[in-house]
């Protein structure tokens, strides 16, 4: 392949040659001929490199000498196939030269553009001896959730002057998953009003039939004598009874708005990023409390994870959240209509959305409230992201902010626990704000 340099030299030579012929100037023709010769020699020497290569994953690689289909073979190994945002991934690229001739190679392992090379380099210039192999190690930092793929490996051989090169993509791909990172929550202030009784369940910090002590209170008529705390009676002179914590679990429904508009703002600071992180944190918290957690992600389609408990459920939810892509514009009403028949009455619903470009939001949330669902809305403000990124002027920001405040006020009037989640606010703070603490 011609480089820009060789193309310019070639053009210059052609121009001089033609001009020389036109003007009958042998000097120009001579210069043109020398340039042609120079280029021809470089092409002859640079073109020797037939990088007929093949790539395979390191795990698939079985033979001692690699795949004997070409001269350059690439294999890759990752330290992990799953990680959380801001996690690090160690990549080991193994390059083999199966030819009997040494090669000077330029190797670039393609890394998704949102990732940063933290240590080492994915771009290597090397002299690979005959029948030799080498390992290239580098570490990438993964700041954003998603499904990613490393590869292909691009190998290039060129002449010493960089006039001609041959390039080949070795189709070695390694997929990995970056989960949204999670914030440790101490308290979410979200409880089901209609908890399910569950054998062996955990405490939900409400008095009720259970085994764990909750508090002391005065005796009322009808209380069981077995519940009387005689020591407390002896101390206070009043009949006191032990209250126990209610053993129960809740169904928690988390709805994540993944419409195209959710990605308004910088790539790493937008409503969808915040929503997925919040959903992951909340899911972890509730599952840790042994609640059943279901997640609905809607954008161009409604993707749901059925309510379940346990660590496996967390993994399923995280996978779905990692794959959430800002696409489509399904109104919330459609989602509500679809899920309403399947949600237990009184289940807490947490809705994560920037509340933009959806005229059905008010009606949809009203439907939830009308059926006595406990609705919490955390709304990462796209306006703030856009304003911080200086993509929105002050006037536009103020106008849109007012509209947003009106909407939030309207939703609050419906009894929705809502919080305008500003970019620098912790999730726990936003939740506390939404619940009125």
């Amino acid at each position, binding site marked *: 392949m011609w480089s820009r340099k060789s193309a310019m030299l070639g053009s210059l030579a052609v121009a001089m040659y033609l001009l020389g*012929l036109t003007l009958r100037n042998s*000097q120009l023709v*001579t210069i043109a001929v020398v340039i042609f010769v120079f280029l021809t020699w470089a092409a002859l020497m640079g*073109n020797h490199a037939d990088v007929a290569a093949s790539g395979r994953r390191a795990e698939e690689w079985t033979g001692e000498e690699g795949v004997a289909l070409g001269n350059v073979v690439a294999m890759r190994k990752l330290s992990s196939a799953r990680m959380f945002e801001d996690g690090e991934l160690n990549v080991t690229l193994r390059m083999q030269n199966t030819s009997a001739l040494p090669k*000077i190679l330029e190797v670039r392992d393609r890394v998704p553009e949102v990732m940063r*090379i933290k240590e080492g380099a994915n771009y290597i210039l090397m002299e690979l001896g005959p029948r030799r192999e080498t390992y290239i190690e580098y570490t990438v930092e993964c700041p*954003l959730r998603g499904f990613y793929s490393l590869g292909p490996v691009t190998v290039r051989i060129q002449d010493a002057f960089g006039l001609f090169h041959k390039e080949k993509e070795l189709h070695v791909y390694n997929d990995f998953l970056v989960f949204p990172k999670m914030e440790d929550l101490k308290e979410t202030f979200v409880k089901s009003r209609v908890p399910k009784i569950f054998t062996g369940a955990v405490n939900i910090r409400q008095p009720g039939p259970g085994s764990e002590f909750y508090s002391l209170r005065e005796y009322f008529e009808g209380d069981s004598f077995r519940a009387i705390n005689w020591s407390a009676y002896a101390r206070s002179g009043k009949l006191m009874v032990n209250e126990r914590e209610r053993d129960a679990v809740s169904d928690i429904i988390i709805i994540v708005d993944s419409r195209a508009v959710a990605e308004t703002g910088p790539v790493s600071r937008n409503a969808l990023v915040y929503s997925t992180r919040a959903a992951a944190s909340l899911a972890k918290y509730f599952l840790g409390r042994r609640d059943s957690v279901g997640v609905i992600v809607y954008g161009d389609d409604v993707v749901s994870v059925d309510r379940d408990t346990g660590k496996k459920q967390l993994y399923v939810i995280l996978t779905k959240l990692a794959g959430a892509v800002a696409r489509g514009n399904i109104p919330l009403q459609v989602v509500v209509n679809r899920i309403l028949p399947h949600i237990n009455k009184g289940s807490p619903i947490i809705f994560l959305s920037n509340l933009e470009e959806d005229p059905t939001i008010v009606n949809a949330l009203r439907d939830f409230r009308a059926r006595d669902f406990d609705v919490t809305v955390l709304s990462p403000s796209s306006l703030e992201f856009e304003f911080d990124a200086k993509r929105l002027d002050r006037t536009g920001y103020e106008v849109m902010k007012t509209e947003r405040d009106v909407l939030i006020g309207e939703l609050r009037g419906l*009894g929705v626990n809502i919080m305008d989640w500003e970019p620098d606010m912790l999730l726990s*703070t936003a939740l506390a704000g939404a619940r*009125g603490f």
Partner: protein
Amino acid sequence: MTINKPSGDTSHLYDGKVVRSSAPSRKKAAGQVGSGSSIPQDAIPDVAIPSFIESLLGGPLVPKMKFLPPDKMVQNLQIAVYGVLVALALLTYMISPPEGTMWYLVTGSLGFANLIQLVVIGGATVCGFMGTLKRDARLSLVSNLLFILAILRFASSKTSLSSDVLGLQDNPGMLAVLVVVYSVLLIMYFELNNGVIRYSMLDTSIRTNEVYVMNPKKIVSKYHRSLVLNPIIATALAWFVLSANSILPWFVGIFSEDTATRMRESVELTSVYGVALGTLFVFIVVGILFGLNLPTHLQRFRERRAE
């Protein structure tokens, strides 16, 4: 469709119910983000939209990369550029007398044309020197263009010299050698100039850990070897190509001596068209060899031999 339908008035469902509406506590909410949830600013990819000119040239006009101080390799290349630059400037002045230059065609004054020619060559030298010293590709490009401009002459079929210190004017063979040497120097100047930028970029990339170079000595030695070998080979091959109009009659002489003699005495064959014809002939052969994929066959042969 359900999407656009209003869900109906549900206000009656609220009758008799206490609807709690608590304002969020902004004061409480004014927490600061901990280190755990901060997003690295440089995780946001920069979107650089090239201008019209940049898109034509395939890259930014002003290099964004700031080079680190030159290492020994780059310094050596810079010294080589200075040497070649001086030689090139002298040779350019020698083989491009003011007659036939575009300045002469425009002004009609030899003195004025000579002055402009000197200014152009001087400008090319100064720009080349500054470009190499500052490692600024734009100045180097200006220098290259000025050198090309200086050599463009719109007259004469034969090479003439503006200052014939060595008395080469009457020796056509030496004149041709001089032009070939000049041409090779011109290309080497382009290459060395470019090499300074390329190796500065590479050196900076290595030192900022963008690129990792394994066995850099071998890579550099290959470049050094090419810097010596390629001009020699290019000179020899160019000489062969330019002599094609002499070789052709010899080749034809194998079959017919009369035709060969007529060819030798032909004015056309000894003129610039003869050179062009010879060149065309040689490059047709080269083109056929490339068309037959000679480089690949050559590589296969080398591979087999190495086995």
